[in-house]
């Protein structure tokens, strides 16, 4: 187990380094620079700016400097948000992204499992058909369509909920729902599928023969088995919900790190984009590592593989 842990951790670190390196050089390859705009920049001024942001050094030197900073946990100064360091920006943006992603995950799991169970327990019934029809639509409709529709209906036309920005509780309703919809639908279909499968298992007959109530059977004998595929789906889903909020944050004008990422890329804010990529990569790799370790714990065959 120790050897497995070591190799998995090392390969995760290697992947992390690879991502940082590729993004660092890709970003520099993009045409346009952080100080390009409509206004003129006299050569003296450009020299001053490049010196202030370390851009007067050679590219390899900048790369080594960046890795050094990263090692110290410093993501550097933002090129464009001059009054903030990238660490400060991530510290203000990450909680917003995590809240939206977390709420969306919560909605996707509770709603998805409830709907899937309801449909799966009566396969072929009218409610099953209806629910699965709705989830089909949910999967097919991309967030980029659903979110503006929500804004138009609930924000502009009905005036019930704010159309964007951050403020009170009401600002946290539309974005997580819009983000959660496709995942809710996916979880519902997964749950339904495995519930239907579990229904034909012989141990349910035994349970019924013992005289258990339907409620107990569902809780003790159907759900735990039916939810296994859902659990394995949660690793990638959690990562996707976190990164998926890039679109939601743009549409709802939320100050999360996904929005920084888009703005940073447009502004050639090298350090900000790098910082957000580093955080995303670290989170996703961590999720994957945890899932791998959990699998290894559950299934001895995996940890014996080289």
């Amino acid at each position: 187990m120790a050897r497995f842990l070591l190799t998995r951790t090392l390969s995760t670190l290697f992947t992390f380094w690879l991502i940082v390196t590729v993004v660092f050089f890709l970003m520099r390859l993009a045409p346009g620079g952080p100080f390009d705009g409509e206004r003129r920049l006299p050569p003296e001024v450009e020299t001053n700016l490049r010196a202030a942001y370390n851009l007067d050094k050679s590219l390899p030197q900048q790369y080594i400097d960046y890795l050094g900073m990263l090692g110290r946990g410093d993501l550097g100064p933002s090129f464009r948000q001059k009054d903030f360091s990238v660490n400060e920006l991530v510290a203000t943006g990450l909680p917003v992204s995590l809240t939206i992603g977390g709420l969306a995950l919560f909605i996707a799991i509770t709603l998805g499992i409830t709907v899937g169970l309801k449909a799966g327990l009566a396969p072929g019934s009218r409610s099953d058909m209806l629910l699965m029809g709705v989830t089909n639509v949910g999967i097919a409709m991309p967030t980029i369509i659903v979110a503006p529709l929500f804004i138009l209906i609930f924000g502009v036309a009905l005036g019930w909920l704010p159309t964007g920005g951050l403020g009170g509780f009401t600002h946290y309703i539309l974005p997580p729902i819009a983000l959660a919809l496709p995942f809710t639908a996916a979880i519902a279909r997964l749950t339904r599928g495995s519930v239907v499968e579990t229904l034909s298992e012989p141990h349910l007959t035994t349970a019924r023969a013992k005289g258990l109530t339907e409620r107990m059977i569902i809780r003790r004998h159907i759900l735990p088995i039916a939810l296994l595929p859902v659990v394995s789906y949660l690793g990638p889903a959690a990562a996707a919900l976190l990164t998926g909020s890039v679109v939601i944050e743009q549409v709802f004008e939320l100050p999360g790190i996904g929005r920084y990422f888009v703005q940073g890329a447009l502004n050639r804010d090298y350090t900000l984009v790098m910082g957000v990529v580093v955080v995303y990569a670290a989170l996703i790799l961590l999720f994957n590592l945890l899932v791998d370790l959990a699998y290894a714990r559950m299934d001895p065959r995996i940890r014996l593989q080289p």
Partner: protein
Amino acid sequence: MYILSRVVFSLVCWWLLASPLQSAETIHLGNPGEPETLDPHRYNLRLEETILTDLFLGLTTFNARGQIVPGAAAAWTTSSDGLTWTFTLRNGLKWSDGKTLTAHDFVYAFRRLLAPETAASLAYFMYPLKNAEAVNSGKLPSEELGARALDDHTLLLSLEAPYPHLPERLLYPTGYPVPKHLIDRVGDAWVKPKNWVSNGAYRLEDWQPQSHVTLVKNDYFFEPVEIERVSYHPLANEQSAYNRYRAREIHAISSFPSGELDRVRKDFASHLRLSPLLSIVYLVFNTTVVPFEDTRVRQALALVVDADLITVKVQRSGNVANGSFVPANVVDYTPAVMPHLNLNRGERRETALRLLREAGYGPDNPLRVTMRYVSGTEAKKTQLAIASFWKNIGVETQLHHAELKVHFADLRQGDFQVAQAGWFGENNAEHYLGLLVSDTGNVNYGRYANPEYDALMHAARQKANVKVRNVLLRKAEAVGIAEYPVIPLYSVMIRRLVDPAITGWHENSRDTHPVRFLGWR
């Protein structure tokens, strides 16, 4: 399930308590993006200027109608050669922490702006000051800068050459004072809300990046102001700005989708505020590449572009066609328009075809042009219209678009044939005409060079009297425009929506609306 519902319930309660109460005294304004800095010496964007105008006060300032009026300076005098300006400060000026503001603070600020280590991208705004360019490039120490405090109330500015528009230059954030006593103590962290000190009608209270910047009344400001608190929200997307305005979350927005103009005129007529911005959008020819080094080709292409048709029929967003390189709404100046504007449509087409024939282009050898523009719906419609004008005289146009940064980086490198460009800003002709001077550098995108034009511009820049200056500038414009280095197209119309309950809002050609002049009905 019971535990779950309890968790949800407590979460809801927490959020309700944690949500800030929407104060009725706060005015919520949309700003077209997130400020990159609130350090007035490091600023670079109009949207930062908007916020900084509320936070600071320069020697001169805008009034509610966008006119230049005394600010921190009560009055000023100019020497007869126009090289020395003496400013007298108002009595009793204070910083927002109650400390007295003196002429020494302005000297410190000008030196800081031009110090190379400040890396101010707009430092060149102050290049009219004596030795400013040398100080900014590190060739002279900052003490050599032409800014001196004679006493606490008197500031003396000496210039490199006469510059009658100095009062206009001084009202931008690059001319704002910054609190030396604070910067000495906390360094770059002075811009954090917890440290913040400024001398304007408001001070910085809170800044959540990508969410809002909130300013609160500065009790030490010399004039009373009505609005207690102002929150600027970055609304980069016109559609979401429009949505949030309609949902009554924002009191005024800086723009809305141009396609909604007709509907807004019908449904929210009392909210609509249109103001023609001092600006010129134009097409620029790269005069160093074949065939655009040939004046005949440039003229032929210019002849058939109908800017009226573009603004009235194609864009329909209120923009105003402009036949000169200097916007028509610049004060005290009569622009020189393109010479062909007195011809009718048929004559223009005839002349254009003849010019192209003379330059060697015709049905057997059609002129092929690649035109570049900044990505966007309105720009695309405009460029398509221009391409169709050119098609009428047998010119084949290929369109190429790129995002703003890439577009202008390419233009500066001269990597284009014909391109869309724009210039915004000042209320004086040389701000625009300066772009076509041969030693202007890479914002003379087309590398236009004409010794006669240069000589006239140089002569104008030596004159201290605005009228004399403008006569020379107009001559220069007439010489330049006749060679068609650019095709002026239109001035931009700013489309704002403003809550009718707000008072003191006046449309103006600078599109400036300091909150200290606003109030509630």
